[in-house]
């Protein structure tokens, strides 16, 4: 069996395995797996509304995945995507609601505000890591909580004791009547284009620029890079800031596209944490992140239709979805198995 065959077979087999085990779970619990998966499929691709909403769900996953993947490639573990996303969301909504500008200026400014807030939130852990060797995992986790509660307090102050911000002005909105009419009033917005542009940007940064080479090099081996004349501290901070900007953009997509405002939250959005899985599924490559985000976003949105169309309870649905992702993540084991089988055949 050729390498290429294995590369294509592995994800296919893992998805099939996940679906099979999921089917068993449904069957054992007394629900019809075929009905369940039909509902899942229709929930993702069933009509233009579903497709629009699925793409909407994928958008922040791509950006959160990029944020984690970028940090990974430079040897950093950014667990703070969640917090950076929350501050980015708030900053984007604030600029979107508080200023009155023409759309050509207002929309980019709001998006940039989101990115800048995320970058700023990641700058601090980067600085602490670069100057004092404080591990970024601890700092970023704690920064998540600070972000959550600081933003809640800001929303409360801004709204005069209320629990949500004002709505952004139309001039800062990513939504469009055209996309809405195309997809039967789904909340699909232009954010997906921004997300895809960022995929290209990350690839370009890492593969085609000196800066990207330095960043990766520091990630591979700090000491060797330093010997080679690179500034370690500067590169660590830069890596965190770029990663944080991606995360902030993910928040801006939620604020300017999906919701149009922000609520005080009792807990995290979960997008930032799912972003870690998205990045790992995509092997930390820009294109891989798209694949991971499509899988996560589709399953997450499509799963809503399983209780709706097939009467399967929410809890079972979550187990099934988790199983599919679990088996996809287990790709390495399947790869090992396949190569053993093909070796045996060669031996014969």
């Amino acid at each position, binding site marked *: 069996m050729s*390498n*290429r065959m294995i*590369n*294509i077979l592995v*994800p296919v087999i893992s998805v099939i395995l996940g679906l099979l085990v999921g089917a068993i779970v449904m069957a054992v619990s007394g629900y019809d797996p075929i009905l369940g998966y039909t509902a899942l499929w229709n929930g*993702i*691709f*069933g*009509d*233009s*509304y579903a*497709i629009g*909403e699925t*793409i909407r*769900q994928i958008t922040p996953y791509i950006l959160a995945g990029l944020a984690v993947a970028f940090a990974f490639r430079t040897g950093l573990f950014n667990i703070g995507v969640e917090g950076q996303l929350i501050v980015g969301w708030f900053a984007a909504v604030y600029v979107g609601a508080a200023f009155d500008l023409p759309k050509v200026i207002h929309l980019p400014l709001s998006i940039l505000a989101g990115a800048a807030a995320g970058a700023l939130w990641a700058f601090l852990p980067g600085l602490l890591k670069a100057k004092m060797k404080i591990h970024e995992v601890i700092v970023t986790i704690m920064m998540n909580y600070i972000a959550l*509660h600081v933003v*809640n307090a800001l929303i*409360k102050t801004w709204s*005069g*004791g*209320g*629990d*949500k911000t004002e709505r952004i002005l139309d001039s800062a909105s990513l939504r469009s009547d055209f996309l809405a009419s195309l997809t039967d*009033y789904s*909340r699909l917005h232009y954010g997906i284009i921004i997300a895809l542009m960022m995929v290209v940007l990350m690839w370009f940064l890492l593969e085609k620029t000196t800066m990207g080479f330095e960043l990766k090099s520091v990630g591979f081996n700090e000491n060797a890079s330093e010997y080679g004349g690179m500034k370690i501290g500067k590169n660590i901070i830069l890596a965190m800031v770029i990663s944080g900007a991606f995360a902030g953009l993910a928040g801006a997509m*939620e604020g300017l596209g*999906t*919701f*149009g*405002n922000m*609520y*005080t939250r*009792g*807990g995290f*959005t*979960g997008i930032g944490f799912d972003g870690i899985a998205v990045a790992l599924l*995509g*092997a930390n*490559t820009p*294109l*891989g992140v*798209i*694949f991971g985000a*499509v899988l996560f976003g589709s399953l997450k*949105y499509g799963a*809503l*239709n399983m*209780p*709706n169309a097939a*009467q399967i309870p*929410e809890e079972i649905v979550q187990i099934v979805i988790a199983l599919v992702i679990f088996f996809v993540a287990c790709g390495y084991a399947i790869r090992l198995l396949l190569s053993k089988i093909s070796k045996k055949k060669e031996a014969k």
Partner: protein
Amino acid sequence: MAKRKFGLALSVLLAAGTLLGACGSGNDDASKDNGKKEGSGEKTSEFSVAMVTDVGGIDDKSFNQSAWKGIQDFGKANDMEKGDGGYDYLQSAGEEDYIPNLNALARRDFSLVFGVGFMMQDAMDEIASQQKDTEFAIIDAVVDQPNAASILFKEQEGSYLAGVAAALMTESKKVGFVGGMENEVIHRFESGFVAGVKAVDPEIDVDVQYAGAFDKAEIGKTMANRMYSSGVDIIFHAAGGTGNGVFSEAKERKAADADANVWVIGVDSDQYDEGAVGDTNVTLTSMLKRVDIAVEDISKRAKEGKFPGGETHVYGLSEDGVDLADSRGAIPEDVMKKIEDYKEKIKSGEIEVPEYPEGKEPKK
């Protein structure tokens, strides 16, 4: 290199899936629409009702559960079955699910769709303006659309009675209030409770705490621990799942020392079962918020063609929207009589319970 090519191939495959899916959908849409038309042609007079839950789900022992009970009762009373054309619910896992869920139920041709919880306000506003043929109703918030009814409760009135009960029953002259998140709804609970306590005896201390979340039982438990340790003997919680922590702290104290004077006043549903410790119980009473009665009431009106679209209905003591649960002997007869007196005074309008706690009035 191979990995990258494979990734490309896969994303092309997925993109193709999306496009092909889009191609197929045209026909699907058409056939679905036909089905809808045929379906509605057959049963134009049939009334169906559904609801979208908040993140709590229909077994949250609180208002989602209560709303679902109202829909089930209505369904049984009218010989309806669970599913399309009868009654059903969808659960939201997060805020991003409200709109798809409301939309899904409207597309399944339910005549009336409830949104449970103030968090759904914006989502319902948007969907109601798009799905003009469906009737909507929201609980705990106001949606200004001609096809949407708004249901509010006078939580302050029921909480006032809870405050009176706590003030009459406390021995340490210290009572506590544990709120979920600070918002207008929970502020009405706090305001009513404090006013009720002070009406009986202005000297009694009320320790007011907010947990900042509705699903953090561990925070509720810590707060209850602190309150009971400082001498508080009755805690009223308006904190959903967080309040379960208040119950577990009280139960632990009761289990360790059967003579411990610790009580909890439950919220939304009758939480008597939550407070059972062996043969005793720590539940003094519960402040009932009869979402089920409101849901049934609005469903009935809608079925009769008298759906109050664009209107706001407020359910208070007089409408049986709020009340105290049976204390099952925890509150003695003579105290119950005093509570009844206050109840009559509120109903007659002699006592007007403040809607906002002191210093928490909305800035306008």
